[in-house]
C-alpha cells in the first residue's frame, strides 16, 4: 500500500473514525446498564436527581472501570468527566489533546542538559514519573506505556553518553505516535538512536567478503518477532494458521539473515556529542557501509542498488502490510489495556479496525484504540463476576493510579520515586528499565502450576509476580501511602471528611480505585478492621485513611481488574 495513505491520518479522522460502527452499539449497552447499575457511591453526587439535568452518560462505577482500562491512572474528577461526557466524546477529547510537555523538554527545562550529566542517568526516572503521574493526557500515557511494553528499550541496555536524552527521544517517538499511524511508529523507532543502540544496528555494516563478517541480525529478527508479525502465521482472530495441524512459521533463519542487510550503514546524524541533540535526530545511513546487493526476505524484494532509505521504506511497508500485523498488534494492545485472554471475536474486531479504519487506512491507532476500549467485550460490566476475564494490574499502573487518585504533585519536579525495579523493596518494575527487549513480562506467559495454566490461559503480568515482589509491593505501597516520596506528597483532604464513617471511606476508595469491584464480603471485613482504629482524633482519621488505602490496594479484587 502506498505510504501516503496513512500520512493523511490525523486528528481530523477522529470524529467520524473507524470505530464508529462499534461505538453506538457499545454506548447503547452502556446506557441501559447505567440505568440499572447504580454508582454505589452517592456520597457526593449532586446532579443525579434534577429533571433539568441530562442523565449522565454512564454510571460512576462504569466510568471508573473504563478509566482503569484506558488511563494511566485517574482521579474523582476524571470519573465525573467520563460519566458526564460518555466514552466516545472523552476518547475524542483525549485524542485531540496536544501533549502538555514532551519527555525531552522536561529534561531540558529541568537543567539536565548540563555537561555534568553527560555520563549519568540523572533526570531519567523523574522525567518518566512526571509524565506518568503528572501529565493530563492520561489516555496517551496509558497507550504509551503499552507501546513501551511491546517496543521495548531499557536504559541499562543502551550505551553512549546522555542516556536520559536517548531514552527521552525514544519515548517521545512512542508517545507522539500513540495516536498516529502504526507505520509512522515503525519508521520512528527504526530510525531512533535508542533502538539503534539497544538492538545494536547503529554501526551495523554490510557483509565483508574479506573477513566473512555478516550484518548484525538483532534488529531484523526482533522487528519481525516482537514488533510486527511474530513467529507464526495468524488468522485475524489471533489464532494460528494451521497446515496439516501444525502452525506455519512466518519466517526462517534465511529471512533474518536477509532482513539484516536492510539495517546496515546506520549511524548518528552527527559526530557532535557535546550536546544531546543528535540523540533525537533520526539516524542516517552511511552509504559505503550499507548493503546494496539484492535482498529478499518474506515476500519482500529489494533490488540491487537500492538506497538505504528506500530499502527501509520497502522493508517496513512490506512488514506493515503483512496479514499478521493487525491481530498481532491488536491482541497485545487488548492484553495491555483490558484482558489477558480476549475472545477470538474481540481480537478479530480490533484487528479489523487496524486493517481498515473505515476509510481505507491501515494502522490508524485511534481506530485501534477505540476498537479496543469500546468493544462490547470490554464494556460488558457483567465481566466483574467473571472468573477469567481481565488482567492483573501492571505494578506501574497501581503506583501511578494511587498518585493520580490523590493528586500527587512534585513542586520542584523531582518526582523522587526513582528506579522501582527492585523485587526486595519496590514494585518489581520500572518504566524504561526493562531488563531486555523481552520486557518485564511476555504476552504469552503462563504461570505454571496454577488454575490459569489448567484453564489454558495466559497471565502476562504474573511473570514479575512472586513471593518477594508481592510482599515488596505491599511494603512499598504502604510506605508511599503513608509518607509519600520526598516532595511528592498525596492529598487526602477529600477523604478526611469521610474517614469517621468507615463505610463511606471504603465506598469512595472502592469506586475510585477498584471500580466498585470489591465484594460486599470484603468490604464488610475491611469495615470491621477499620472500625478498630478510633476516629476521634485527627491522627486516628489519618490512620484509617492510610490503612484503608493499603487494604484496598492489597486486595485480590483490586489487583485483578475485570
Amino acid at each position, binding site marked *: 500500500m502506498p505510504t501516503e495513505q496513512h500520512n493523511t491520518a490525523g486528528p481530523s479522522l477522529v470524529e467520524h473514525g473507524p470505530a464508529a460502527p462499534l461505538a453506538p452499539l457499545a454506548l447503547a449497552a452502556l446506557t441501559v446498564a447505567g440505568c440499572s447499575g447504580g454508582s454505589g457511591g452517592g456520597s457526593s453526587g449532586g446532579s443525579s436527581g434534577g429533571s433539568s439535568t441530562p442523565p449522565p452518560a454512564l454510571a460512576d462505577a462504569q466510568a471508573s472501570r473504563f478509566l482503569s482500562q484506558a488511563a494511566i491512572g485517574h482521579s474523582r474528577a476524571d470519573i465525573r468527566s467520563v460519566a458526564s461526557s460518555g466514552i466516545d466524546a472523552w476518547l475524542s477529547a483525549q485524542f485531540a489533546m496536544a501533549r502538555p510537555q514532551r519527555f525531552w523538554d522536561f529534561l531540558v527545562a529541568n537543567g539536565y542538559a548540563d555537561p555534568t550529566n553527560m555520563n549519568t542517568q540523572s533526570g531519567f526516572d523523574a522525567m518518566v514519573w512526571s509524565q506518568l503521574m503528572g501529565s493530563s493526557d492520561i489516555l496517551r500515557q496509558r497507550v504509551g506505556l503499552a507501546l513501551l511494553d511491546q517496543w521495548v528499550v531499557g536504559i541499562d541496555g543502551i550505551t553512549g553518553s546522555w542516556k536520559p536524552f536517548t531514552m527521552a527521544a525514544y519515548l517521545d517517538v512512542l508517545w507522539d505516535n500513540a495516536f498516529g499511524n502504526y507505520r509512522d511508529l515503525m519508521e520512528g523507532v527504526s530510525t531512533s538512536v535508542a533502538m539503534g543502540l539497544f538492538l*545494536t544496528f547503529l554501526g551495523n555494516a554490510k557483509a565483508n567478503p574479506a573477513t566473512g563478517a555478516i550484518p*548484525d541480525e538483532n534488529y531484523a529478527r526482533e522487528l519481525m518477532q516482537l514488533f510486527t508479525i511474530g*513467529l507464526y502465521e495468524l488468522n485475524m482472530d489471533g489464532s494460528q494458521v494451521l497446515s496439516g495441524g501444525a502452525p506455519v512459521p512466518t519466517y526462517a533463519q534465511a529471512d533474518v539473515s536477509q532482513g539484516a542487510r536492510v539495517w546496515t550503514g546506520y549511524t548518528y546524524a552527527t559526530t557532535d556529542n557535546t550536546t544531546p541533540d543528535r540523540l533525537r535526530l533520526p539516524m542516517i545511513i552511511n552509504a559505503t557501509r550499507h548493503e546494496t546487493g539484492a535482498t529478499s526476505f518474506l515476500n519482500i524484494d529489494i533490488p540491487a542498488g537500492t538506497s538505504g532509505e528506500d530499502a527501509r521504506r520497502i522493508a517496513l511497508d512490506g512488514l506493515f502490510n503483512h496479514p499478521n500485523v493487525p491481530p498481532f498488534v491488536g491482541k497485545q494492545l487488548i492484553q495491555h489495556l483490558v484482558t*489477558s485472554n480476549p475472545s477470538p471475536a474481540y481480537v478479530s474486531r480490533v484487528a479489523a479496525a487496524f486493517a481498515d479504519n473505515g476509510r481505507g487506512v491501515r494502522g490508524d491507532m485511534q481506530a485501534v484504540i477505540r476498537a479496543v476500549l469500546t468493544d462490547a467485550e470490554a464494556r460488558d460490566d457483567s465481566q466483574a463476576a467473571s472468573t477469567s476475564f481481565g488482567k492483573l494490574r501492571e505494578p506501574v499502573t497501581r503506583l501511578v493510579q494511587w498518585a493520580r487518585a490523590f493528586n500527587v504533585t512534585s513542586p520542584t519536579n523531582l518526582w523522587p520515586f526513582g528506579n522501582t525495579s527492585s523485587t526486595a523493596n519496590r514494585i518489581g518494575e520500572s518504566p524504561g528499565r526493562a531488563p531486555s527487549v523481552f520486557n518485564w513480562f511476555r504476552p504469552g506467559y503462563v504461570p505454571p502450576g496454577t*488454575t490459569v495454566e489448567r484453564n489454558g490461559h495466559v497471565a502476562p503480568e504474573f511473570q514479575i509476580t512472586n*513471593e518477594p*515482589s508481592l*510482599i515488596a509491593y505491599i511494603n512499598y505501597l504502604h510506605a508511599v501511602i503513608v509518607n509519600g516520596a520526598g516532595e511528592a506528597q498525596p492529598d487526602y483532604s477529600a477523604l478526611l471528611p469521610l474517614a469517621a464513617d468507615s463505610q463511606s471511606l471504603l465506598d469512595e476508595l472502592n469506586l475510585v480505585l477498584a471500580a466498585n469491584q470489591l465484594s460486599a464480603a470484603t468490604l464488610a471485613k475491611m469495615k470491621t478492621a477499620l472500625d*478498630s482504629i478510633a476516629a476521634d482524633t485527627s491522627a486516628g482519621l489519618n490512620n484509617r485513611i492510610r490503612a484503608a488505602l493499603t487494604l484496598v490496594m*492489597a486486595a485480590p479484587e483490586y489487583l485483578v481488574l475485570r
Partner: protein
Amino acid sequence: MKTKRTTTITRRTLLKQASALSVAGAATPFVVNLAAMGEAAAATAADYKALVCVFLYGGNDYANTLVPYDNNQYAIYQAQRPGLTYAQSALAATALTPSLPLPGGAQYALAPELAPLLPVFQAGAMGVLLNVGALVEPTTKAQYQAGSVRLPPKLLSHNDQQSYWQASSPEGAVSGWGGRIADLLQSGNGTATLTCINVSGNAVFLTGRSAVQYSVTPAGPIALGTRTSLQGSTAAAALLQSLLTGGGPHEFQAALGSIGTRALDLYDQVSAALTQAPATSTVFPAAADPQSTLGAQLQFVARMISVGSQLGAKRQVFFVSTSRFDTHDGLATLHPTLLTNLGNALRAFYDTTVELGVASQVTTFTASDFGRALTANNDGTDHGWGSVHFVLGGSVNGGRYYGINPTLANGGPDDIGQGRLIPTLSVDQYAATLASWFGVSASDLATVVPNIANYAGSALGTNVGFV
C-alpha cells in the same frame, strides 16, 4: 557441615509426612502425587543433594568462552571473527590439559577471564560439555537440511529457547525439568515447598506437575512490614494477611493467593533457619558486571544449603541467573566482563561448598538460550544453537571434556551456517545425567525428560557420565 540425618526414611514415612503436610497445608497447593513419587526418592533420601542451575540469559558465545587453542582450530577461529579473538599467546595460562585428550589434537583454553575455574577443572571437579543444545532427537546436518528430523520449535528465538532449555517446550511452557525432578523427590523434604528455590525471579524450570517454585531475593525472603500492626491496628494487619493469602474465585486471584500464602507461611521458617547458617570465610568478589547479582545469588544458595538440615531438606533444586549475554555488539568489550563475573561467582560458590563440607553433594551447571555464531557480524556475534557448558561439583567426573568436538567452520559439517552449531549433546541427555545423579531412577527418567528415549543407543547414550 552439620550432622546429617542418618535415619533411613521409608516410603511409608514419607507418605505420612506428605499427607501431614497437605493437611497442615497452609503451605500450598501441594498435592501428594503417588504416581509421581519415584522409587529412588523414597529409597535413599537419607543424604542431601542440591542441583544448581546457572542460567546465562541472552545466549552465551561459545567460541569466546572455551577458546580454540591448537593451531588448526585457532586459525579457523581467528579467520571467522577477526578483531574479536583472544591472542593465542594470551590463552597459554588457561589452556586445559584434560585427562582424556580430544581426537585430532584439538585443544581448548578457558577464556582468560575464567582463570578462577582452571584449578577446579584440573582438580577434577569441573567438566566441560561440548556442543550442547536443544534437540528433539539426534540430528545430523543432512537430516536438518532434508527436514527429515523433528526440531525444537522457534530455534534461535531467545524467549522460546530459554523456555525450551528449561522445559522442552517454547514460551508458555507449564513445567520444567527441574520441577519435574522435584515432583519425584519433594516428598522426602520436611517442607515440600522448599524443594525448588529461585533466587532470580520466575523460571518455568522450577515448576513441575505438582512442584512449585519458591522465590527469594539474594538477601533472603522479604518480611511483610505491617505483619503485626497496620496503622496501629492489629485487626487491619490480620486482614491484610488474610487478603494476601485468600485468593478468590477468579483464576488470577487464586494464583495471587498461592503466592501470598507461600510468602507468608515460609518467611518465618526460612528466616529462622538462616540465622543458623554457619559463617563462611570464602570471599565472593564484588560483581564485575554491575548489573549482575550472580555472586550474591550463589552466596545465598550456599547459605540455604548450609541450613538444609534445619529445614529438613534432602533434595533441593536452585535457579540463579545473570544476563546480558546477547552480544550482538561488544563481544570484545562486554563479554570478558560477563565472564569475569561468572568465573568469580562459580569459583567462590564451589569453594564455599568445599568449606561447608558439601562439595560432593552439590552439582552446579550452566545453561543458556543458545550458543552463538562463530562468524562475526563485525563487532559481535548472532544467535546460534549448540554451545559449551560447565558442570562443577565434588561429584563431577571432571578434568575432561564430554560430548563430541564440533568441526569449527562457516558452513561445515556441524553447523547450519556461520558456525551456528547443530548440537550433538542434547539438553535432554544433560538433564537426564544430572537427574540420575540426583536420585531419579532410570524408570522415572522419562517423566523428567520425555524425549530421553530418543537417545537410547546414540553415541553418548542417555547418561553422559559427567557426574
